[in-house]
């Protein structure tokens, strides 16, 4: 009947008209498709890659660069959306897993042909990006550090020590971790419930707690995981239990920022406010350690030692990788290469924000002010201890252990679970995650 067709046409026409009207507006909102058409999407930390860097790279590569702020959940979401960034920032702890899950490109062929990034010019920290399926440190290169630091060095705020009447530790003789704990307790200070000084903060607010633990264990040539990475072993390994117990005790001592004693700022900001007596961050922090409050009152100290061969590698090895799903690998490499070996790399070296990824750039590190000179003096001693490669677990991501630690630390510190239960929970949660990872990769 004509009535039906008229109605149908009306409704249909209405729908089409509405969508047609909306289409031009929506076209303007198209997604940032990766690669192709001369555009490269880079996911990184805006603090490490500001607008000037972007413009420099765009000029050098003749490509358009779009920057997305680094966030693990967002990264995973972009992957789930089938639209990952071309280049993204990672830390060493995550690299094995990204490789196992086929998320990153093998860059060995590119390095072989590169004029800027020569294999024998690469700093040892780059070995974190090498993997052969079993061991980190050997095999093909999957990425590169943007710069690195021996990460276990300490910064001391001398005023906190003066207030407590404690001598500032020497910058030539490393402390032991036990000595460090004692000193931390002495300089730790609260005044009528308000925090004056935290004694010793470390591991980036527990985000890197497993790496710290692994480095301590590495002094005795041990690790947190079983040989084939299939299990996290703490309670079955007396040394590991000792290390974890030590780190837990630091939290219980109240010298560290914890879930029950948090700070609204990150560790670095609090140090600049003069609220931290001893801070464990790598060389890179020296570029910002001196604020108005801490200027002239900051001392750089060598990494403490646990109980064996002292080691001070990087535990972050922050760098870039190229996604396996990039639509234009050559374009991504061009951006990568320039950032790692071109002008931005030289600027980074001069800024003192880290030890360069290329050995040839080492001399460019700043050494003008008294503080910088003192830092360099200590750094030279540390570089000799920094070749070690921590073996991260390929079945889990960068934050798996830390998330479990933080989640269980709160009830443990409040007393609702015992230390043994705390360890058990972490082991069970991480082992479940490892099993999940294995199930997926079929390892």
């Amino acid at each position: 009947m004509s009535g039906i067709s008229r109605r149908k046409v009306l409704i249909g026409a209405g729908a089409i008209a509405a969508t047609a009207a909306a289409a031009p507006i929506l076209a303007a909102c198209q997604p940032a498709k990766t690669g192709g058409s001369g555009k490269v999407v880079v996911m990184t930390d805006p603090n490490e890659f500001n607008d000037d860097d972007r413009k420099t790279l765009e000029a050098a590569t003749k490509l358009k660069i779009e920057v997305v702020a680094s966030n693990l959940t967002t990264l995973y979401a972009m992957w789930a959306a089938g639209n990952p960034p071309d280049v993204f920032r990672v830390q060493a702890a995550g690299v094995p897993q990204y490789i196992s899950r086929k998320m990153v490109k093998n860059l060995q062929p590119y390095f072989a042909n590169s004029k800027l990034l020569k294999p024998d010019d690469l700093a040892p920290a780059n070995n974190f990006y090498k993997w052969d399926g079993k061991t980190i440190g050997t095999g093909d290169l999957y990425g590169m550090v943007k710069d690195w630091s021996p990460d276990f060095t300490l910064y001391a705020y001398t005023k906190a020590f003066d207030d407590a009447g404690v001598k500032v530790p020497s910058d030539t003789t490393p402390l032991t971790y036990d000595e460090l704990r004692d000193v931390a307790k002495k300089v730790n200070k609260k005044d009528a419930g308000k925090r004056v000084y935290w004694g010793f903060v470390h591991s980036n607010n527990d985000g890197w707690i497993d790496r710290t633990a692994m480095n301590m264990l590495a002094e005795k040539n041990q690790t947190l995981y079983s040989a084939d990475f299939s299990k996290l072993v703490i309670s079955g390994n007396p040394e590991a239990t000792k290390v974890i117990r030590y780190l837990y005790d630091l939290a219980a001592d109240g010298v560290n920022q914890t879930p029950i004693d948090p700070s609204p700022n990150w560790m670095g900001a609090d140090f600049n406010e003069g609220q931290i007596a001893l801070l464990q961050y790598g060389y890179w922090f020296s570029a910002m350690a001196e604020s108005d409050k801490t200027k002239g009152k900051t001392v750089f100290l060598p990494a403490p030692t646990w109980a064996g061969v002292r080691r001070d590698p990087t535990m972050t090895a922050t760098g870039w990788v190229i996604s396996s799903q990039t639509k234009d690998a050559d374009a991504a490499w061009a951006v990568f290469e320039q950032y790692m070996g071109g002008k931005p790399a030289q600027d980074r070296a001069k800024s003192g924000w880290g030890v360069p990824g290329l050995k040839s750039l080492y001399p460019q590190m700043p050494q003008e002010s008294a503080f910088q000179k003192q830092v360099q003096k200590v750094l030279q001693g540390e570089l000799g201890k920094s070749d070690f490669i921590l073996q991260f677990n390929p079945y889990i991501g960068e934050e798996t252990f830390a998330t479990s630690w933080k989640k269980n630390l709160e009830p443990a510190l409040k007393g609702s679970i015992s230390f043994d239960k705390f360890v058990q929970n972490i082991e069970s949660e991480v082992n479940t995650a490892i099993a999940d990872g294995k199930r997926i990769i079929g390892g």
Partner: protein
Amino acid sequence: MSVAAAPRRASPAQTGLRYGPVLVAAIAFALPIFWVLVTSLKKQSEYGSALFPAVPQWVNYELAVVLADFGRFAANSLFLSSAYALLAVLVSALVGYGFARHKAPGGSKLFLLVIATWMVPNLVLFVPQFVLFARIGITNTYWPWILWGLSGSPFAIFLFRQFFASFPRELDDAAEVDGAGPLRIFLQIYLPNAGPALAASAIFMFLWVWGDWLYPALLLHQENTTLAVRMANAYVDPRGNPLQTVTMAGVVLYVLPLIAFFAFAQRFIVRGIVTTGIKG
């Protein structure tokens, strides 16, 4: 006919009883909001050390706009909220009209289905939708909201169905006699008289998108995201320390247009809900 007693003067006790609780409740409710205003006018150094600002720092509002690129992202939020509200309301009105006035085999079961979808936990539905959107490549665009709008909202469909069900059928019959088809009846009789329901549902739909943080955080990308997501991490000083005072100014700016609008529009909402007879 009501036989009212002679109007009595309320005793002070009775007045106290009438106004007391309401005043206390109002103060309790307003306290956090009041504190937002106070904090937004402090210097960051006064935060935590002074109860009230020495001098109102209106500059915080300027900072709130600048640090979060407020104008641009507010425009994004505005576009998204309006587009969704417009589509969802019109479609829901049409669908609600269909349910209210037209019978068909399976019709009542379908209406139960509408209500049932309302009860499904959001995350249960969103996760597979997210995967679907990802697979067809519309993440990082506004298309998900357009699609959601085009399929209507169970809440609004329910509202309109109840609302239209109370219209007198004589209007339909008269129009049919004049040869009008259902669409014309809808456009010329039902829709023009649906004011309260349109307003009520439009407001809810708009509010849902304007205030949403989770979906834009997961679906959109930082260039085209909404204000809520943009503001979430924007208010820090160059060292990375949080600026509570500027954050509060940002909150005020984010919320002020809504408050003004709602203070004005809320009587429509009440009327809209009354006329749908939710009791039934």
